[in-house]
């Protein structure tokens, strides 16, 4: 009864994703929002790793391969996102998201 099951990993993944979702929706600072999005990526990866361990499949490593590609794309996203934030800060001296209204009509 103490054994780890798939549900442990699924619940932890859902928890991490929801906390990240709350952060991404409630914070106003652009860097904090990017950090929350990284947290959401982590929740997804925990879910994938749990599924890849416990669910029957021809190759038990497919979920981990997915997670590796997600990590790579997350790294690219973080680099470009932070470059955009730094460029906006140089222009407007703020990284509060409500102040990013240049393209608002």
């Amino acid at each position, binding site marked *: 009864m103490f054994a780890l099951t798939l549900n442990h990993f699924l619940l932890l993944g859902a928890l991490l994703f929801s906390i990240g979702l709350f952060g991404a929706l409630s914070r106003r600072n652009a860097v904090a929002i990017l950090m929350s999005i990284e947290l959401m990526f*982590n929740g997804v990866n925990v879910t994938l790793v749990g599924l890849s361990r416990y669910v029957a499949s021809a190759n038990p490593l497919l979920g981990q391969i997915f997670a590796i590609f997600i990590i790579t794309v997350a790294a690219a996203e973080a680099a470009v996102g932070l*470059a955009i934030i730094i460029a906006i800060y140089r222009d407007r001296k703020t990284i509060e998201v409500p102040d990013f209204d240049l393209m608002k009509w």
Partner: protein
Amino acid sequence: MTDVFASIAFYTFGLVSVGGAIGMIAARKLVHSAIFLVVSFLGVAAIYLLARADFLAGVQVLIYAGAIMILMLFAIMLTPGQVEAAGRPGQQLAAALVAGAFLVMTTFTLMGTSWPMAQTLSDKPTTEAIGQLILNRFVLPFELTSVLLLAAMVGAILIARED
């Protein structure tokens, strides 16, 4: 007995990662948020180890706790003078509602699905098998990823440099 130890380790590191995540959301200073996020990432790396994903645990420590956090810290240091005002209560409430609804929905869906469970759990090291898979079956996505990383690198330099 190993089951009990694995469970204790899972709950400990799960608490560490969730606690780090909550601390990251709650901290008002960005640097504190970043430190809490590192704690959360390391907790998740330990969770990967418990799922026998040893290669991913290493990748998690190197890429997330290492590289991405350094990027975040650079961004925080390069944008000084940011004191975050507390968000409007309406926004907080709406965000909590959306996130809570999402959590309830995913939990019910994931728990309610009857997954085809594997009969035997593999305990083999994963690094060699992942390398074989990436360079054979997934060689095209792998090459596309390198193009994506190159484009992201050039783009980040182009956007962030002073002109």
